[in-house]
């Protein structure tokens, strides 16, 4: 057999909810009305939080903020599929995923105010703090998912990252070692078409990002990332596989409708037409149409919800401001090590005294 085909692969794509809100009934997952409403509610909360955060940033109250606008279905749909014990490992744009998992708007705003308080998490929260170094967090989700495998537990970990992150060595080592270790890990790549200004085509010659899984010998699937049902469904299945020690990469095709962060100006690198195109595929509008079609949403409920969200936001802003007001800079000494080493204690004392005490 001098010239043979030794391996074949394919990448599938899943869509359930069309942009107009019509649903493929064969594939429609059977979710309770409550769950469906919750998904909608969280997407709306996330969207408003973004708006408010950007406004606060413009007023100088927040630092750099990375809105997830347009990516709500990818985040909420996937996070909603997690079991209670599952872990979330976010990048830096996962406000919607974190809200789904119970994080408060107040802590998200506090984080954007430059306060560690906003990233305070623990094993009980089953969430790591946001990760700024692109791609780095994927490996943490491998370690967590691997710990589950070692201890023969059922939980899984989901790592969020973007299209740009798929070019990093860390994401590749994560995919590959997750496979090698049989880690209970799902990789949720939000392909929002851009890494800052760099369009996805310039990141890689690969036609899909899901096919990055082929290199690791694990499953990869593409999903319409603006379709909360499809994302939910694909994540659910991926989690089931992961719990068996078969990690999966899910590529959610979506669009970052807003700026990269509040320091970015998308006009430098993309056309308005493209944005308008994607506006039509908005994940919230689509999901709302679907819920209205199913009678789960009414004008009244939508209005009620909007009012609830405004109230939640006000409280959150107040909370974050309070956290800021109470923040003690000396905390930085406290949390560096479990026990503060003497030389550092000396630095801390000097900082309290306003100077550096060297003397003999």
């Amino acid at each position, binding site marked *: 057999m001098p010239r043979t085909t030794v391996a074949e692969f394919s990448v599938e794509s899943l869509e359930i909810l069309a942009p107009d809100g019509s649903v493929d009934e064969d594939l429609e997952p059977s979710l309770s009305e409550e769950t469906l409403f919750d998904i909608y509610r969280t997407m709306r909360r996330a969207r408003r939080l973004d708006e408010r955060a950007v406004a606060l940033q413009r007023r100088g109250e927040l630092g750099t903020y990375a809105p997830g606008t347009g990516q709500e279905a990818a985040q909420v749909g996937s996070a909603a599929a997690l079991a209670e014990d599952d872990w979330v490992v976010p990048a830096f744009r996962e406000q919607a995923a974190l809200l789904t998992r119970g994080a408060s708007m107040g802590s998200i705003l506090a984080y954007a105010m430059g306060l560690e308080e906003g990233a305070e998490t623990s094993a009980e929260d089953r969430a790591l703090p946001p990760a700024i170094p692109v791609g780095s967090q994927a490996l943490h989700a491998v370690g967590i998912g691997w710990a589950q495998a070692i201890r023969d537990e059922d939980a899984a970990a989901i790592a969020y990252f973007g299209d740009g992150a798929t070019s990093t060595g860390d994401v590749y080592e994560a995919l590959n070692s997750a496979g090698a270790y049989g880690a209970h890990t799902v990789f949720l790549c939000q392909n929002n078409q851009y890494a800052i200004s760099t369009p996805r085509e310039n990141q890689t010659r690969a036609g899909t990002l899901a096919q990055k899984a082929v290199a690791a010998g694990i499953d990869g699937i593409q999903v319409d990332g603006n379709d909360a049902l499809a994302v939910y469904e694909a994540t659910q299945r991926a989690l089931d596989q992961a719990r068996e020690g078969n990690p999966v990469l899910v590529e959610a095709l979506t669009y970052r409708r807003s700026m990269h962060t509040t320091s970015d100006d998308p006009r430098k690198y993309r056309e308005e037409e493209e944005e308008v195109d994607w506006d039509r595929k908005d994940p919230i509008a689509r999901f709302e149409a679907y819920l209205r079609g199913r009678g789960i949403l009414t004008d009244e409920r939508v209005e009620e919800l909007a009012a609830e969200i405004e109230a939640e936001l006000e409280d959150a802003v107040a909370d974050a401001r309070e956290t800021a007001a109470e923040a003690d*800079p000396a905390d930085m000494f406290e949390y560096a090590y479990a026990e503060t080493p003497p030389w550092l204690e000396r630095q801390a004392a000097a900082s309290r005294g306003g100077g550096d005490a060297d003397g003999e």
Partner: protein
Amino acid sequence: MASDLRLVEAVKATLGEEMARDESVVLYGEDVGVAGGVFRATDGLLDEFPNRVYDSPLGESGIVGAGVGLAAAGMRPVAEIQFQSFLYQGFAQLQQHASRLRSRSRGGFSCPITIRTPYGGGIHALEHHSESFESGFAHVPGLKVVIPSSPAEGKGLLAASIRDPDPVVFMEPTRLYRSLRESVPDDDHVIPLGEATVAEEGADVTVVAWGSMLQRTLSAVDDVDADVEVVNPRTIYPLDTDTITESVKKTGRCVVVHEAPETAGFGAEIVSRITETAFYHLEAPPERVTGYDVPVPMFAREDAYLPDEKRIAAGIRRAVET
């Protein structure tokens, strides 16, 4: 002729001039092309040099590693690492290859790569966006480490770095990118690497500071009742030990200021060299005014972490009054 420029503008102008001067200079890095860099330090250069400015895929090991290859093949790569923290992702390539291509090939190859990277705190940036690891880079033999403290230095030192036959980590203080304007020569302006400058003369105490700490030091000095000499090393490695030593021999007292954590920071090296070269002239223990040995906090606590005028002045006073 000269123009009034900010640091980021001086950097951009210099990149353009060096590209015009030398065909083998290519620029690349994340978002440096179409967007012109996150700080706009390469803005417009893609249009001016269409085949010599490239947006790279995300991945700093890839950026540094490819640069080693570009250099080996005769190019003069100028890479931008978006923030200094992310050069850690490329640290292995820097340490194992860029810094050693010359020695490993017994001079057969050189590695004239310049890695530009914004560094330091003070602009209320995100986590991991305020690192200053100059000491770690200076501990890698084969590398040079350069830090400009003003727009004109930005130009003169960047030109020298790009023309240098060895790899240079060129650290641009983000806090100075737009906060300072200065007259910058329009012509060829090269500041030789390895030469410190005396930013302010004085007789009582020597303060060594660089990056955004230099400005802070210069303004802290006004609050101190002493005649302070301020030395700006400009190049961290190779350090101009002579200029610092001479100053300390004159003043007998010394303070080093930097943003990085104190332990194993470059202040330690400077203190050690002074102690070795000017021991009998020292009238008081050298002082270090630096960041603390904690991870740089997020920006709400940043002011408490970074040395400010008050801490610098206090350090100078301690040195003078002891």
